[in-house]
């Protein structure tokens, strides 16, 4: 949920002063700047934002942000996001982590975390490698391929994050590119504004370990044609217009799936799928479990009267 103030916040407002230790030229820089731009665009007060990360190069992101920052455990971004959001549903909670973190060790949480449709944004820094442990194959490395850092080529089918997110109930699914910062900032802003679980999978260059998917590869320097293109520049419509129409939901999912597996080998950026349905918080509120105030601020919980419960046991 976005809390807004007078529009004096710039991307720099969201920057911390810590020395950044990513490698020169790492795509992560682009993502962190895009995130800062997105927050500035939405004018969310920094102290109402929490950035929650896993472990990996990507995991260091919160330290570089001038917001509340939680650098948690490898693979546990979504359990962490879930706990924090349930404690204080007024916070804008942004999960960030690597592809190994999110689609590898954390993939169980990825699936289960999406299904709740809690209102969070999750950015996956997808560089096809386990970078911080020196470049082993990650779940998104294509079968048959080998980066310079891998001992041998992969013999495992890669994760298609869009397809997996569709199957996992995410209600906003998009893909960005780390080096198209403005465009990415826009996607992130949309994801934050979306009410529900939003995934932005981000193609991230890792010049140190991933020599396959380099900037020039994405730009199609080898094939003469840019590999990336933008869905919003076509007539692709990701939005489910009638969330109660099961047929439309299914059709939009199938369409997104097909888009994400385009046989041309070209890679679309943009929003693949979007559905507006009540969030987990909405459902809890409807059941009277969650109030308007965040749990964290409910002084009332400390005045609870348990006498009626004891009476029943007499």
């Amino acid at each position, binding site marked *: 949920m976005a809390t807004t103030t007078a529009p004096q916040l710039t991307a720099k407002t969201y920057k*911390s002063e*810590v020395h950044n230790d990513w490698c020169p030229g790492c795509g992560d820089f682009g993502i962190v700047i895009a995130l800062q731009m997105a927050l500035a665009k939405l004018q969310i*007060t*920094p*102290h*109402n934002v*929490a950035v*929650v990360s896993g*472990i990996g190069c990507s995991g*260091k992101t*919160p*330290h570089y942000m*001038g*917001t*509340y*920052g*939680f*650098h*948690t*455990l490898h693979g*546990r971004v*979504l*359990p*962490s*996001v*879930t*706990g*924090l*959001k*349930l*404690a*204080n549903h*007024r*916070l804008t909670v942004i999960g960030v982590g690597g592809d190994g973190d999110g689609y590898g060790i954390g993939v*169980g*949480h990825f*699936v*289960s*975390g999406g299904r709740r449709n809690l209102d969070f944004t999750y950015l996956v820094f997808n560089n096809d490698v386990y970078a911080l442990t020196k470049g082993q194959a990650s779940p998104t490395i294509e079968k048959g391929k080998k980066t310079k850092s891998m001992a041998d080529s992969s013999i495992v089918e890669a994760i298609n994050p869009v397809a997996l997110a569709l199957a996992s109930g995410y209600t906003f699914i998009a893909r960005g590119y780390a080096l198209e910062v403005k465009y990415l900032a826009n996607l992130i802003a949309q994801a934050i504004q979306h009410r529900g679980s939003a995934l932005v999978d981000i193609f991230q260059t890792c010049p140190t370990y991933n020599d396959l998917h380099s900037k020039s590869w994405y730009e199609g320097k080898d094939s003469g044609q840019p590999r990336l293109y933008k869905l919003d520049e076509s007539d692709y419509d990701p939005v489910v217009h009638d969330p109660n129409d099961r047929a439309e939901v299914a059709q939009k999912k199938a369409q997104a799936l097909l888009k994400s597996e385009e046989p041309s080998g070209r890679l679309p950026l943009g929003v693949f799928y979007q559905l507006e349905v009540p969030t987990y918080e909405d459902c*809890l509120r409807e*059941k*009277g*479990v*969650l*109030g308007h105030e*965040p*749990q*964290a*601020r*409910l002084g*009332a*919980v*400390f005045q*609870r009267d*348990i*006498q009626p*419960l*004891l009476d029943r*046991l*007499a």
Partner: protein
Amino acid sequence: MSAPTFSWMIGGPQGSGINLGAEILARVMSRLGYYVFGNIEYHSNIKGKHSYYRLRAADRPVHSHIEEVHLLTALDEETLIGDLYHEFPGHRGHVEQVAPGGGILLEPDRVEGVRRRLDGRDVHLYVIPYGEAVHQALSLAGKGGQAHEYRIMNNTAAIGASAALLGVPFDPLAEVILSGFHGKARRVGETNVHCARFAYEYAQKEFKDLRFKLPPKPRRARDDKQIMLKGTQAVAIAKLKAGCGLQTYYPISPATDESVYLEGQQSQYNLVVLQTEDEVSAIDAAVMAAHGGVRASTSTSGPGFALMPEGLGFSAITEAPGPVVVNYQRGGPSTGLPTRHEQGDLRFALHAGQGDIPRIVIAPGDLSECFYDTFDSFNYADRYQVPVILLLDKHLAAMYATVPRFDTSGLKIDRGELFDPAQRDGRYYRYRFTESGISPRALPGQAGGIFWTTTDEHDQVGHITEGIGNRLTMMRKRMGKLELVEKEIPDEKKFALYGSPQAPIRVVSWGSTKGAILDALGRLDPEGKRYAFLQIRFLQPFPAKQLQALLRGAQKIVCLESNYSAQLAGVLREKTDIRADHKVLKYDGQPFSEDEVVAALEATEAGAGEEVLVSEGKVVSAATYGPEQVDKLVELKEKSGKMAPPMVPLPPGYNR
């Protein structure tokens, strides 16, 4: 003969409602003013396997079961003569446990087998056709023809007949039965009352000579503020009282009941109960909720706790104010004995997680302590910014007993040191070095309080550093909090000595063994001169100095616990100069009975070795007893001829 304590047991297949029935009877007796202690034994199975429920009622407080049974109520054959239909049978039924002069309530077609097993022993057989009672009751409701579909009501009939044999008046029984049915279900309740009444009257008329009766008059009045509940409820209610805002869980026996209870209170009490995808997620979400500003907790059992070392480290290194982790221990290792008792996770709870981790570990010993220790744990979590582990077990979880109504008047919430923007001096550092080691915490969303936190080693700001000076300071900051806990928390929360400090023999134990020990000492040493019982509640930080002082000068020290490796004895020896002279152990999946404690202590006086193993009510030999029992059962089976296993119909009319 009226016993000062009456012991009743009901046995039947799982799903036959013995727990419901037993708890009805327990509440009736409690309402009549008796002190009641109940516990259940059941398999990891939904329907069909053997389960039994023991009740003990007395005119003084009782905290454990005894071995002998005064009235055994059998809903099936297995309860009587065992599960002899297995390749390796597991038990021989309960007929042999019935005391001379006691009785067995059973259906007509089981009499012969039981007679053979009794082999002339003085036990009365009260033969009753439960089905007849059910039929009569259903007839009144116009459903007489359907009695065979209502076998589940057999247990009501059994309770009715039991009540009559015990000399309990019928009205309170009817009242308690009916209290379980609301609204439309009222009709069903009434049918149950009819059923119970039929059996009650049948028993009054037909059965006479049960030698044991309830004690003539209970010592307490009905309104003396006693309640009856289970451990899971005591913990759940304490969490509500403590202001817990998020309970996470993944289903697991025997912990689930606590979360299910809380689920029922969610909307009344503004508590979110989150069923997670696994226990890894359960603890991590709770850690972050604690950081987020709510009191958070998760409850589990061994297999779930085995997935939480990661989360404990997460909480500890980020100095989260919690969570409170409740581990209901059960029989291990691995999946082990999912519905049975053990205290096998002590060492694991103390050391779970890589590296040196500050944590508080508390083991309440009875239902009252379950309540108060749980309440306090949230204060400790907030105050010391550490995870708190409560070690309960299946016995505490499922025991059902009379306890004094909880006194909430002295309970105060302490949220520990919080960041106050008004008093800020210079930049706010979440991990500022302070004298106490505790840094005031801000809550995300608070203006001026922005902080960072990481599971990597970090500086005062919360950013990663591998600097050596910082490392040494941070390690001490975190671990030093345990010294603070040791200093600040009063001793009476950490341990208790029951009996005379001059007693020559000290029984040392922890957790749920408390009840059986107190009962046993009451029997062995009513004056409290020979034995004293030292109950250790704080396992971490361990009150080593105080315990050492309390145990010094003892003639003999006996450690008693429900595990194989005498884990507490090990901790005691590690942390103090005390070496237990005897280790009384039990690891057969069942809690200690009063008799087992008595037998073990008598054995130590009669020159038993260092290790004293008990099982099935007596001291046994670890090397030979088990295999002998296995052999005996196989023999018994071969002798008895094939016993029919419970029939299990396949799904109706499926299409092959």
